[in-house]
């Protein structure tokens, strides 16, 4: 990564090590990601949790690492590494290899950082690593602890989406907070002893179309990086409660913040893209209503649905778009499951960015991560590996989550235009 004059020297004293389960996992245990998990394998969640001084005050790095061993003991899957079965389907060998741990220092205080903070700087606080080129040596989770000059700390979580959705990732990290507070996490999640999904299907693959929610990309092999035409960059903006109220007045009181923000952003994106109809297919992801079978278990259980508009988006009323998103979205997960099954799990799909994607992370419990009684002052997330159509994530806002934090991941050239449009709509001051 080329560092500009501003970023050079900003983050220094980097150290690399690993943390892993406290107890040895029995040998030869595996975890097989399901079809929906494998569909997400080219995506990565990058989250940054900012803490003020008191959270990590007086703690040496060894004291911070120690509880992580008991924490990771509960999730042996996160310390494993990918392998390929004979059929080519990827599975995780739970060999206790570990989670990568980076330490770094920043010569700015938290306050100074928040003033200069932008998308490219935030990339310095969390690892940008992907899985590959060697599957067996690529960690699935990377944690970066950066200490600021004032004593504040940021914890960067780099999470392979194949392990689970953002709701899972949030719960995973929240467990660490609970452990540090003294709670007993209970026994580790169970693992399988043999591969059951990696059976080579003898049926000839039926030549059927891929479901509309996914895009098939050229085979990436063992280098799990989404090939895109454009360079996608994240663009962050906060929506204050006042702005939210203003939005909802535009859209109508029936719709929640997510729908309001998404509808207006959809319209803005349509305007800058200047296409005739579109983008008239969008994917919507949100938390599943069903509770996880086992509390805290990881997995891609979020609802993935698709909405198709048969009218030009540019001219549509935001309320109409919001209504469409709420009422016409149909759950497409079964189709994705089938498609992956047909391909024996070997095909490379992209979900976020196959169509313009809106991800509702309002219910993600990011701010429940408490370290020694301190909640993060700010949580920032983005997704890497998004496809060319782009994605918009709506996260809970800081300060008791009344506002919203929005991340738009779009082709670089579109960001300027989007910013202008959003200003017009009043989403940005």
């Amino acid at each position, binding site marked *: 990564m080329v560092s500009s004059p501003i970023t050079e020297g900003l983050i220094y004293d980097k150290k690399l090590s*690993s943390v892993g389960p406290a107890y*040895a996992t029995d040998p030869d245990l595996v975890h097989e990601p399901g079809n929906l998990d494998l569909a997400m394998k080219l995506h990565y969640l990058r989250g940054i949790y900012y803490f003020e001084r008191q959270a990590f005050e007086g703690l040496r790095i060894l004291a911070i690492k120690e509880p992580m061993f008991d924490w990771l003991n509960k999730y042996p899957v996160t310390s494993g590494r990918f392998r390929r079965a004979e059929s080519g389907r990827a599975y995780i060998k739970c060999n*206790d290899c570990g989670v990568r741990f980076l330490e770094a220092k920043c010569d700015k205080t938290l306050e100074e950082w928040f003033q200069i903070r932008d998308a490219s700087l935030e990339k310095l606080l969390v690892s940008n690593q992907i899985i590959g080129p060697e599957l067996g040596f690529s960690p699935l989770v990377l944690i970066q602890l950066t200490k600021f000059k004032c004593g504040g700390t940021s914890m960067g979580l780099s999470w392979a989406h194949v392990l689970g959705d953002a709701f899972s990732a949030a719960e995973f990290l929240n467990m660490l907070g609970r452990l540090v507070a003294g709670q007993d996490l209970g026994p580790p999640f169970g693992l399988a002893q043999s591969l059951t999904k990696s059976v080579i299907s003898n049926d000839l693959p039926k030549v059927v179309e891929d479901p509309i929610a996914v895009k098939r990309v050229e085979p990436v092999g063992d280098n799990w990086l989404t090939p895109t035409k454009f360079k996608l960059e994240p663009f962050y903006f906060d929506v204050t409660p006042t702005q939210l109220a203003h939005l909802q007045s535009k859209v109508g009181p029936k719709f929640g913040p997510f729908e309001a923000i998404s509808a207006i952003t959809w319209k803005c994106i349509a305007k800058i893209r200047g296409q005739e109809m579109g983008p008239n297919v969008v994917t919507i992801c949100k938390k599943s209503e069903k509770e996880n079978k086992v509390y805290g278990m990881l997995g891609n259980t979020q609802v993935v649905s698709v909405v198709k508009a048969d009218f030009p988006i540019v001219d549509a009323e935001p309320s109409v778009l919001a209504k469409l998103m709420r009422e016409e979205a149909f759950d497409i997960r079964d189709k994705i499951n089938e498609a992956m099954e047909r391909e024996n799990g070997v095909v490379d799909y992209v979900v976020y960015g196959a169509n313009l994607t809106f991800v509702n992370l309002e219910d993600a419990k990011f701010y429940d991560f408490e370290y020694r009684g301190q909640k993060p002052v700010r949580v920032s997330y983005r997704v890497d590996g998004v496809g060319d159509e782009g994605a918009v994530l709506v996260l809970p806002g800081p300060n008791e989550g009344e506002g919203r934090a929005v991340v738009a991941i779009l082709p670089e050239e579109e960001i300027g235009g989007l910013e202008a449009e959003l200003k017009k709509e009043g989403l940005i001051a």
Partner: protein
Amino acid sequence: MAPLLTKRTYQFVVNNFLKLIFIPIALAVSSKADYIIQFYNSMHLTPLHLLCTTFLILYTLTVFLVSRPRPVYLVDYALFKPPRSYRASFAGFIEHARMGRLFSEPKSVHFQMKILERSGLGEETCLPPALHYIPPTPTMALAREEAELVIFSAMDSLFTKTGVKPRDIDILILNCSLFSPTPSLTASVINKYKMRSNIKSFNLSGMGCSAGLISIDLASDLLQKHPNSNAIVISTEILTPNSYLGKERAMLLPNCLFRMGGAAVLLSNRRSDRRRAKYRLSHVVRTHRGADDKSYGCVSQEEDDEGNVGIKLNIDLMAVAGEALKSNITAIGPLVLPASEQLLFAISLIMRKFFNSRSKPYIPDFKEAFEHFCIHAGGRAVIDELQKSLQLTNEQVEASRMALHRFGNTSSSSLWYELSYIESKGRMRKGDRVWQIAFGSGFKCNSAVWRCNRTIKLPVEGPWADCIDKYPVHVPDVVKL
């Protein structure tokens, strides 16, 4: 059945020879009792004669009693238990090697993988924090920290177990082969625990994995000189400064095998410790093969072509170890073997030397001399080799194999982890004899023989407490990574 009966009869007769011939002699004497009484009366001894004779007998007895070696008791010992957060899994170890200095040397990484697979180590061995970094950060400060963590926690545990106060310690001996800072580690112990100013302290460095028994030997000698004293012996190896950062194969081996560990042992010659001591030292036998060039050069610390310092292990290490073991056995045999075995060995030797008999040399059955064996867990190969040459059963080498599996090669402290294993399994009974054998650079083979002073009751507090029920585990010949 018949050969076993013969063997057992032969052993009984030879080992209890003196007791057996005592009976006929006693009978003979008592039958001649009248004659003896007559002879005594004919001597017409005066009271003065009797008094002088009594004094002579008492004097001789006193000189004899006083000049006997003082018994050396092992009151108790404590072992360092590494925190779970220092754990080094195989996969993690290999990945770190791959990501670090050996990034451009996949062959070296592959070699290390092969070593780990066959090493006999388990997945719960521990490395110090400096060696968990990619690449390792072996600074002096971190080395001292490791030393303080290992030594002080073992010492704290020892003081708690024995109730001894630091100011009561008369002798302090510490051995740590590869880390010897100034002020010495012994000095840092004395500083931390505020020990007396007239304490006799010794810091042994450079003496390899067998230095633990050298320290015991030194302590034992000092306890002969100083009556009513106690001694603490600390055996450890500090790994932080010694990770090899190059790619030469013969030097990568120690990286794969050496792990964190440390032991603190309290020895005493005080009569008050006679009852509560766990063991009594019977013998220490040291053999040094340094005069032989091949032995001298088989383990050496040197720089590789790129200037990285590491410990080079020669290919003929096993052969040299075998020779050293033979020397040591020859020296220790007469001290510990029962008369029956010594007689057989002597006969076999005479037959081969003077009568040119082609028969195989008789290998004394050391199982007759000891109940328990602690073979330094230098690596699986060492334990296999010793099991073969001494014809030991699997149970007898179990302590060594399991200590290697759970803690890795902890150098001079491994003998104590093994002893703790035997105790934790409830196998240590009063009167049991233990043989500790350690090999080290030089090339040295040192042995110590202990006799158990009191049956060790369960549960045993120590590093095995939380996992002893899982053991013994089956260690596969090759672990597939």
